């Protein structure tokens, strides 16, 4: 992006209102399960999706395990223990349901109200040639539309909803499901495995470079429902794919649960770029409502020279608990994590990454930028682990925090475990604020305080935004400015 458009944007942003603009609610006929969680509900979800026995078995196994696990509270975020019986575990627009039942092309079966909602969110569902992204749109528990599937299938790329993949590519799903994030991995991953709603399935065959960005847009609409998407992304040898996800939810005065699991498998010499702009409803000033974003994302670089890169801009959610990780198995494989996490009001974010070095000459880079404003708490928590076999492994970590105002907190909790003497790791962390001298310097040049803050914050995040695909970088910057409004003054 050129500097001039950046400037233009700052002005645009300042004229925007400061409310959560994605906070509307779509009124449409839906089928929503009764609140509650038990084996019958799990069997009903599975039946609704017409799943094969192995998938039901996977769910039940996970559920049995989940029941025995304690809810984790080690993150630097406080929440009352959740009442899991007070959520509904399945909700879908009815019209869409019939489309699936009658095996019609999904695009034609979109509920017009749902289509309107996505249009308002700026998500293109028409799949027209104009757009250079392919989109999977997920509304509560189901995928309502996946665009550009046919173009992609010519290249052998599978891009569909997880539910469809279970029906149409059962061998592939069975081969990979739970291999990166096992059903017993952690409390929320176990819950997800039991009640998984829809998600996205991506398969890129050997040697194929996916020509467009693949993207999923998650929308939680119904009150008191949880979204538990399951996403699997497989990049075969020598392939490349860039995948983006975005999310939002209506304004609600109670917590809503989002417990997703993402598994990424990167084979030899393949490269996956996984970008997220997370803008779930953050709750209001008094800490009422908001999304609890408890997510397990993990990728494994199976083959030599594989590369997995996570980029995230986290501005939403009441509580974020998220550590996109890389298991660097293949020799010379590369893991990257670029993150901007902004918290304002009473948001609490505990996010970071894990880089597990197993293979020789593996490299990882972590760049994390945390911004805290309002009464929020923003924590970086990350693990770098270099195992004995990881000769010449390299890690570089940079965690910078910026505090805006004096009611917020910024924390850095890195864990560094080195078991190989030839490994080299470097970790740097700083905490700073927008300096009085920087503000005065800007003001002396005629730039207003608000403009100066936007400018300095964007400068602070630049290393990460430059990793995002263009449209996403723009969106992330806008979100940042909107989320920051009212934080200084």
């Amino acid at each position, binding site marked *: 992006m050129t500097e001039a458009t950046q400037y233009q944007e700052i002005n645009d942003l300042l004229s925007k209102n400061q409310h959560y603009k994605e906070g509307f609610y779509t009124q449409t006929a839906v089928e929503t399960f009764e609140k509650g969680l038990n084996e019958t509900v799990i069997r009903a979800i599975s039946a609704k999706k017409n799943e094969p026995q192995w998938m039901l078995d996977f769910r039940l196994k996970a559920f049995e395990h989940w029941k025995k696990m304690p809810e984790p509270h*080690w993150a630097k975020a*406080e929440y009352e223990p959740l009442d899991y019986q007070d959520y509904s575990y399945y909700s879908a627009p009815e019209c869409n349901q019939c489309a699936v039942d009658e095996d019609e092309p999904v695009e034609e079966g979109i509920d017009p109200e749902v289509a309107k909602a996505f249009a308002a969110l700026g998500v293109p569902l028409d799949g027209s040639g104009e757009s250079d992204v392919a989109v999977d749109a997920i509304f509560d528990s189901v995928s309502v539309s996946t665009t550009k599937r046919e173009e992609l299938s010519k290249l052998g790329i599978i891009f569909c909803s997880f539910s469809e993949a279970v029906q149409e590519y059962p061998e592939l799903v069975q081969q990979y499901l739970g291999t990166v994030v096992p059903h017993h991995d952690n409390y929320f991953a176990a819950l997800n495995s039991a009640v998984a709603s829809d998600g996205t399935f991506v398969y890129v065959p050997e040697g194929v470079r996916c020509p467009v960005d693949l993207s999923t847009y998650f929308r939680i609409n119904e009150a008191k429902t949880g979204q538990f998407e399951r996403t699997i992304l497989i990049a075969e040898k020598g392939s490349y794919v860039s995948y983006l996800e975005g999310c939002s939810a209506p304004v609600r005065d109670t917590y809503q649960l989002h417990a997703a699991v993402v598994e990424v498998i990167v084979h030899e010499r393949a490269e996956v770029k996984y970008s997220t702009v997370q803008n779930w409803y953050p709750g209001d000033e008094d800490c009422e409502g908001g999304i609890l974003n408890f997510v397990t994302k993990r990728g494994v670089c199976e083959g030599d020279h594989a590369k997995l890169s996570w980029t995230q801009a986290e501005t939403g959610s009441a509580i974020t608990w998220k550590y996109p990780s890389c298991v660097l198995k293949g020799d010379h494989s590369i893991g990257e994590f670029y993150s901007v996490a902004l918290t304002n009001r*009473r948001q609490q974010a505990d996010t970071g990454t894990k880089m597990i070095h197993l293979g020789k000459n593996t490299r990882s880079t972590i760049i994390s930028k945390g911004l805290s404003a309002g*009464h929020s*708490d923003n924590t970086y928590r990350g693990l770098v682990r270099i195992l*004995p076999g990881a000769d010449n492994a390299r890690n570089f970590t940079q965690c910078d*925090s910026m*505090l*805006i*105002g*004096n*009611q*917020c*907190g*910024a*924390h*850095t*909790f*890195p*864990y*560094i*475990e*080195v*078991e*190989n*003497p*030839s*490994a*080299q*790791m*470097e*970790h*740097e*962390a*700083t*905490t*700073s*604020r927008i300096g009085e001298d920087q503000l005065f310097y800007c003001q002396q040049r005629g730039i207003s305080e608000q403009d100066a803050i936007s400018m300095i914050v964007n400068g602070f995040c630049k290393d990460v935004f430059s990793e995002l695909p263009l449209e996403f970088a723009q969106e992330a910057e806008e979100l940042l400015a909107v989320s920051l409004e009212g934080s200084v003054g």
Partner: protein
Amino acid sequence: MTERNQVTTLPKMPPNARALLEALEQESQALNQRDQADPAREKLVARRIAAAEQLRQTGWPTRKHENWHYTGLTPLFESSFSLAATPNNDQDPADVAGLSDAALTPYLPPFETIRLVFVDGVFSESLSGGLDAIDDDLSIEMADADAIQSMTLADLRRYQGVQDGTRNAARPVAPSDAPSVDDVFVHINEMCLDQGLTIRLAPNKVLARPLQILQLVTQNDALVNLRVRFELGHHAQMSWLNQCACLDDAARSWVNRLQQVSLADGAVARQVDWQGLNDQSFLSSMTYVDQAPHSQWQNHALALGARWSRQQSYVCLNGEGADAEQNTLAWVRGQQLTDARTETQHGAAHCTSRQLHKFVVQDQGRGVFNGMIGVAKAAQKTDGQMDNKNLLLSPKAKMDTKPQLEIYADDVACSHGCASGEIDANQIFYAQARGIKHDEAVRMITQAFLLEPLESIAHDSLRQWLHDDLSKRLVALPSLQHQRDENA
């Protein structure tokens, strides 16, 4: 005396862990039995009972506890310990142990000190020296432990920044009334408390001679339970050298030490904490430092020995303009586990803290560094910096590091840095190209790396003496060439 049935049942633990805990309880009960009839010791008995009860509630920490993840206690459980035997009546412990002045030689620096020597925790007048330099301004008491302040739970929580007000006022963390498993060695120290050492320096007094506190351990399977308190009046200045050493290389001991340092306005205290226990022994050490405005605390910890050691220091910068420097030099060899931990709580504005912790780990050694800088809301203009650098010299060496920041004030400059790796091959080659042998180059580079934390010791001959002592020890660095071949 306590009735067994009134006491909390112990949490689940392995049999040897339970055996050790129960043995310690019995030691405590024996002390109580002895002191039962002494009205002057009534309070102390009550404190021991309370601590024993807290220990019963928490049991031992396991690796599941966040602060013990990298520091397993298994080696400690494999041993049995009883409190070190104390000599009868007024016998000098040196006579009992058959020690002469010659035993001191390796520990005597080449300058005048006020030397207090303890044998298995008991003061030995015959081995001590320079006591004539003690004047009215310096008081040294070998008091009944009763005279020493107890560490209450509230005290501990305060040092650990868990109190109201130091955390984010928007969402205060309630001070916990429950004993925490992290304080296990504090509870043991309190439970087995018998004697204590208190050192007070009057306001404005600048003590020219350093104080030397030499702890010699001779007995086998002995727990040496130490409690030391330093109180410096306003603008008083002193430095001291702690030394902890075993005289018998084969005797296994466990030194459990709790130190409290209280610094009034403008007081300056400098500590060198030297630890060279033998390869069988254990060291658990807690140091709590309370700093008033413009006081300065400087600590140089040298961890050179012990099978297993864990040295934790809590520094509370409670007054404006206070300054703390904490450095560690750790050389970890053989089967050693060396754990250095700092928690630095900035509670007031304009305070500075500086830390440099360096580890050299070789053989199957395990090094652990855990550092936390906390900045309270009121602590604006905090300047906190923490660095941890590690050199791993063998394929089986392991280093776990957790440098943490927890910040609630906006106008601060805090940073931490951490790096682990092996010696830069270019440096070795450069030295070799100038005619220096490979092993000599490695030794030279390692030594330079390890000595850096000592550079800020202001006392020239003390720094030089520590340098020389270390250089001699480092000659024992293994042939690294050999290890490299193995690696290749």
